């Protein structure tokens, strides 16, 4: 599984959507189960899966899957 697939799996499992439905534009607007608890679980899962740590200002930009991917890439995760 490559890192894009890992990212999509984390998002899909947490928010109960099919990975095939996700793309970089998938967002809080288009994923109905993206709520407060989901956001906290998402941060925790991403930090564990990719071995990174996010600061609050980064998290405050996590509106789309594409932004999350780009933040992970900035932290050295290869896509």
């Amino acid at each position, binding site marked *: 599984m490559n890192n894009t697939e890992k990212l999509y799996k984390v998002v899909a499992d947490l928010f109960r959507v099919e990975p095939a439905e996700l793309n970089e534009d998938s967002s809080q607007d*288009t994923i109905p189960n993206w*709520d407060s608890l989901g956001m*906290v679980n998402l941060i925790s899962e991403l930090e564990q899966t990719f071995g990174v740590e996010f600061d609050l200002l980064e998290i*405050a930009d996590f509106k789309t899957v594409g932004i999350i991917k780009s933040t992970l890439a900035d932290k050295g995760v290869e896509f």
Partner: protein
Amino acid sequence: MTREPEKSPYADSLADEILEEIRRQMPFLYRATIHTPAVPIAERLPALEQIARRLCAMNGGARDWIAPAVRSYIVLSLEFLKLQRQLEQTGRYLLSSEREAQERVYNNEDVFGGYYLYGLLLSEALWPNHFTLNSHYRDHFLPSVRSDAHILEAGVGTGYHLALLLEARPACLYEGCDLSDYAIEFARRFAVAGAQKQTRTSIHKRNVMDGLPAADGTYDNIIMGEILEHVERPDRLLDETYRVLRTGGTMYMTTVVFAANIDHIYLFEHADEIRRLVTSRRWTIEKDWVLPVYPSDSPNAAKRPMNYGSVLRKPL
């Protein structure tokens, strides 16, 4: 399953602009903010509009503060969610000393000089429990304050309590203290400069835990909003405020139970712990309110996040 973006039903006031900006920046938080059946958003909008008008005046009438203020609110809200998770896992707040809190929060340009105060101010209207406690302050405490009362506020913060006080009791004699230069400057601009008339207010840089330079029984009323959880010895804080209040005077006091924030130090695990502490320091509880952060929790639950508010009296 995916869906179309949710449209904001609000569109023509400063409060509406703020909600729309929250929806634009962080849609899930917009949904969490407006979908709170216990306190419908329509009830909170007037308070948000009032805060927004003062912020507009404070920023020279421009509206370019809205986007950064909303971002501050988002950061503060996310910080609560993240730290609350850590609290539930560790059973401890992030910080354990006032010195750490001063260095990392109150005197930190990125925190108190950055997102914290604007975010906290918007939460006064947008977080249901903050809004409800502010309604109790307005409806159950301010009416009992004499028009010329001598008032102390221990921990001025954003100046929101002061702003409401000056609207209700513009002729009162007010002394506030805070240990953050950022908070003092912010409160002066938000509450005092925005007041309708000339006021008798002064705000000093002072740590209440060092003792207050006031004789016993100096003040008619005291305001102490969300300070108890920020100190290592809340018993000493309750004793010092008791000393400087006149016999028969009242104090409006709020704090939190098991609710994380970057600068919370003293951990109450149950609302009854607060009641026991307060009464053990000779105060009587005139009224109090325990508001769970999550509506499914009972106010009697232990180790669940709650806001606590009270009107305390120094008995005759």
